[in-house]
């Protein structure tokens, strides 16, 4: 489950209006989805309406971003957890005053809300490149050391994955079997991969430290940035749309629109 869930959140480089949006706008949208999903709906009807509309808007946005199928992958991956939420909500049936229909609707609405909560950041993760994410972090005034750590981790992940594959291949060619035998045997086989990988990584850390030194890492108190996020008119417009959507929801909530049917 978890792997397919992560896979579905991996950034894919595409050129769509959504991908071109400033990551700050997308972060704002994702936060609005999250807040809306969590805050609203004291009554199951309202909850269902709000959560479904969140998922629907996600779907529309992802359709524009040509990534809608990954939403389905996320939903499929999340089904076990959502199922758990549903079952837990059904515990309400144990209460003596419970009405079966009411509890069932509650359970359904809670599951959908949970799904809306889980998928709220999809649009952000799917359409924001790690590079933009790094720029976003520095815009949010996160100290550069952390931003750098994040960017370097993303940069190194495939390098280390390649290295792990090389070690696995080398072990295989020496007769180590990774897919056979008892769980204990399999874990033992993996230790043989992990140890050389760790040692290689330590050596790599030294080489990287050297390279960072000669590239003057941390030399200046005030580090400058070459590429900075710049909001265009479209980005401003999009943020206005997102904010008015959020305001509308809050206003409707204030009027009691999501608290029960009249």
């Amino acid at each position, binding site marked *: 489950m978890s792997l397919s869930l992560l896979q579905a959140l991996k950034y894919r480089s595409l050129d769509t209006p959504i991908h071109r949006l400033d990551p700050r706008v997308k972060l704002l949208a994702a936060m609005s989805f999250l807040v809306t999903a969590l805050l609203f709906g004291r009554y199951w009807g309202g909850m269902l309406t709000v959560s479904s509309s969140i998922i629907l808007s996600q779907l529309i946005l992802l359709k524009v971003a040509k990534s809608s199928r990954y939403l389905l992958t996320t939903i499929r991956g999340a089904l076990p957890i959502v199922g758990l939420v549903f079952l837990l909500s059904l515990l309400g049936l144990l209460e003596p005053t419970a009405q079966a229909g009411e509890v069932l609707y509650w359970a359904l609405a809670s599951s959908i809300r949970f799904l809306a909560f889980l998928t709220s950041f999809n649009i952000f993760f799917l359409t924001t490149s790690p590079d933009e994410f790094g720029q976003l972090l520095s815009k949010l005034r996160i100290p550069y050391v952390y931003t750098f750590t994040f*960017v370097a981790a993303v*940069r190194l992940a495939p390098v280390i994955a390649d290295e792990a594959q090389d070690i696995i291949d080398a072990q295989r060619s020496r007769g180590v079997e990774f897919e056979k035998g008892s769980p204990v045997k399999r874990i033992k086989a993996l230790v043989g991969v992990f140890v050389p990988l760790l040692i290689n990584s330590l050596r790599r850390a030294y080489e*990287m430290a050297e*390279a960072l*030194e000669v*590239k003057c*890492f941390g030399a200046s108190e005030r*580090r400058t940035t070459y*590429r900075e996020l710049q909001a265009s008119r479209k980005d401003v417009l999009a943020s206005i749309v997102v904010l008015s959507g959020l305001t509308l929801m809050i206003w409707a909530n204030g009027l009691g629109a999501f608290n029960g049917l009249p």
Partner: protein
Amino acid sequence: MNMTIEIEDLSFRYAGSGRWALRNISLKIGEGEFAVFAGATGCGKSTLFKCLIGLIPQMYHGEYSGRVIVRGLDPSTTPISKMAQKVGMVFQNPDNQLFALTVENDVAFALENIGLERAEIERRVSKAFRIMGIEDLRHRSPFELSGGQKQRVAIASILALEPEILILDEPTSSLDGATAKKLLEELAEIRRKENITVLISEHRLDLVVREATRLIVMESGQIIADDEPREVLRQLLEDDYYMIELPKISRLAWALGLSGRRSIPLTKEEFIANLWGIGS
């Protein structure tokens, strides 16, 4: 010639090691030279290079004696980030030198670190791209590049610092012959055009020796030969030195006894000229 690097009686032993990695090295390198360092693995080339930018003794500790002056600065006490703006250093493995997620940001990385203004970064990044001929890679991600392209980006990211000395520690070890040859030719070209001093360690002498103004051979932490390349080759051929692979054309000429009366040939053309010279 103005001396850009002066080393006097330098010795170094890594902390915890019983062996001296460098033993009584004395060396002077003039401005604009193209110095090739040769020697078997572990002979001390990399250690020597690290002393020139201050990684030794500032990052790697140990027993350090002697005096090193690079462009008027003492690398053992000058902050590495300050040294790095005079001495650019490119390492063997490009994967461990590229940090950003686009090529462009990678070349700008060091410039951001020293806090340059955006316009200046733009100028230097564009220049580095032009020098290395990688303008088309500008918006690519370092993941998708070939080994040769990655090494070019790594060199560009150091050239962007506009160093006066460029040190390359086995830059071609992960490249195939043709790519390595092309890169080394380009480096020679850059040295001429940009007027920078180049120090390079390389196993494939065939590829670099004709561009070199100096050939320095090291063994067990010592310099055993240091002169104009032809002269060094003559000495090595005379001694039948086998620790490094000498250029085939030079060995052939030597074996045929063609180089006795004239200098050692480094290229096919020189070999043929020597051949004609037999009769005269």
